[in-house]
């Protein structure tokens, strides 16, 4: 059977998805440091529990280690990163070059996003780039991979074989447009989707109904964004301050009613419940687990949601040797 499946890339994530296995990806919080060990320390926890590690591109428009550099570190140690590219910071010349570079370093997955606005980050004085939007970037990467040319038409000797991803937010208006926008992303080249945090499962079910009506679930793999809320205060903060995150009152109230000490555990429980709910929805191909600076918690959630062991890991479990530390000692 599996010999009949046509892979477009060497991506392990693609292999998991095209074989109909429920996929798990997780987000790595980029360090504010130039020490590679900070990346490896987080990655080793995640690598055991997921099929792809997202290297975020200055999330929230805050400066962190760049996503392409994190990907370089991860592929060196044998991990499977998902390279995130935000339209916010770089123009088409920089991004095309980075796609080639990333593929050369062994990156097999890329995710194109618009990016949170500069105004919400730690350096609101910065100039916005937004040369191309996420849909145009997707189409561009598809052209580079499948036509083997740059946007200029110039030939690429070895095209970047990248599994192409996009983000979706079913929880932001205009709600009726969102499934059609997903269709546009698929037309542009998206092969997998990672959604924004899902806390409102009824709204997500309604969205998926539309997606199925349009037959889109057969054209793209949808990974639902899930994450734990640390406390009632975090929930309040996230829904008021983080653009695009919608948390229903029911969930905030549930956390508020829980004693402060047990709120973290309750938040984890909610995340696991959401995973179990969305897993049953037709057309959902996996989950994307995000937790700000809580990699251990991510691992626990994935384990307790019954998503272990991860498939296709033979011979790919990384050695995870932080080579830099050794080099430092030699010097």
């Amino acid at each position, binding site marked *: 059977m599996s010999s009949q499946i046509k892979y477009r890339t060497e991506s392990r994530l693609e292999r998991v998805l095209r074989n109909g296995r429920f996929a798990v990806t997780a987000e790595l919080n980029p360090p504010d440091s130039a020490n590679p060990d900070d990346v490896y320390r987080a990655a080793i926890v995640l690598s055991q529990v997921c099929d792809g590690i997202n290297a975020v591109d200055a999330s929230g428009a805050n400066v962190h280690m760049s996503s392409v550099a994190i990907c370089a570190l991860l592929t060196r140690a044998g991990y499977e990163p998902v390279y995130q590219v935000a339209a916010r910071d770089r123009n088409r010349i920089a991004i095309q070059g980075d796609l080639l570079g990333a593929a050369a370093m062994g990156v097999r997955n890329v995710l194109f996003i618009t990016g949170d*606005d500069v105004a919400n980050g730690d350096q609101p004085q910065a100039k916005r780039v937004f040369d191309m939007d996420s849909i145009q970037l997707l189409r561009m990467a598809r052209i580079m991979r499948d036509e083997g040319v740059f946007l200029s038409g110039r030939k690429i000797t070895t095209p970047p074989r990248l599994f192409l991803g996009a983000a979706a937010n079913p929880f932001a*208006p205009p709600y*009726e447009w969102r499934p059609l926008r997903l269709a546009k992303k698929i*037309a542009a080249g998206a092969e997998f989707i990672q959604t924004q945090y899902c806390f409102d499962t009824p709204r997500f079910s309604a969205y998926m109904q539309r997606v199925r009506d349009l037959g889109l679930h057969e054209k793209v793999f949808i990974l639902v964004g899930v994450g734990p809320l640390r406390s009632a205060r975090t929930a309040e903060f996230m829904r008021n301050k983080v653009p695009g995150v919608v948390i229903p009152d029911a969930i905030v109230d549930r956390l508020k009613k829980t004693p402060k000490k047990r709120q973290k555990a309750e938040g984890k429980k909610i995340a696991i419940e959401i995973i179990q709910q969305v897993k049953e929805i037709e057309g959902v191909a996996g989950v994307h687990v995000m937790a700000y600076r809580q990699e251990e918690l991510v691992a626990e959630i994935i384990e307790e949601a019954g998503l272990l062991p991860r498939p296709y890991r033979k011979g790919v479990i990384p050695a995870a040797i932080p080579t830099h530390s050794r080099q430092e000692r030699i010097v």
Partner: protein
Amino acid sequence: MIHDIVHRYPHFLEVVYDFTVWFVSLFRRWLKPGGVTERFFVWFERITKGPMFHCQMCGQCVLHSTGMACPMTCPKNLRNGPCGGVRSNGHCEVLPEMKCVWVQAWEGARRMPTYGYELLMITPPHNWRLANSSSWLNMMTGRDQEHPRGWVTNHDDALALKPYFYATVEEGKS
């Protein structure tokens, strides 16, 4: 003011668009980029499209494909639809007091029987060289259709969704 009034009548704007294309094409022969003609056109577009659409003079006008909402007024200059940051009240992530350009585009497109469905098509990357030039002149000379040489235009998927798009409009009415 004028902006808010004209956006109540997207279908009327559609008709105005068709008229403009026809009217400008009458003078096709005399329209040459550069020189006095271009300067006159730039000035004329500024004083008409400025108040009506808060036109940013990108020189590659796609208003009829975006429900008559100018995508360049989106702080992120998105040309293919809303980002994920739209607030629950339909306002912009960056400018909380402004209605999201794409929410307005969606409402407009649904009331535009001729061009509304073009919202589903992929808008090619913007040619930033055309900034501050006349989009009408660029339309007549075909400059606004000069996309990067490697770009692939394919609207089959969007056209296939056209009936679904208008069906949801009817659904919304009943």
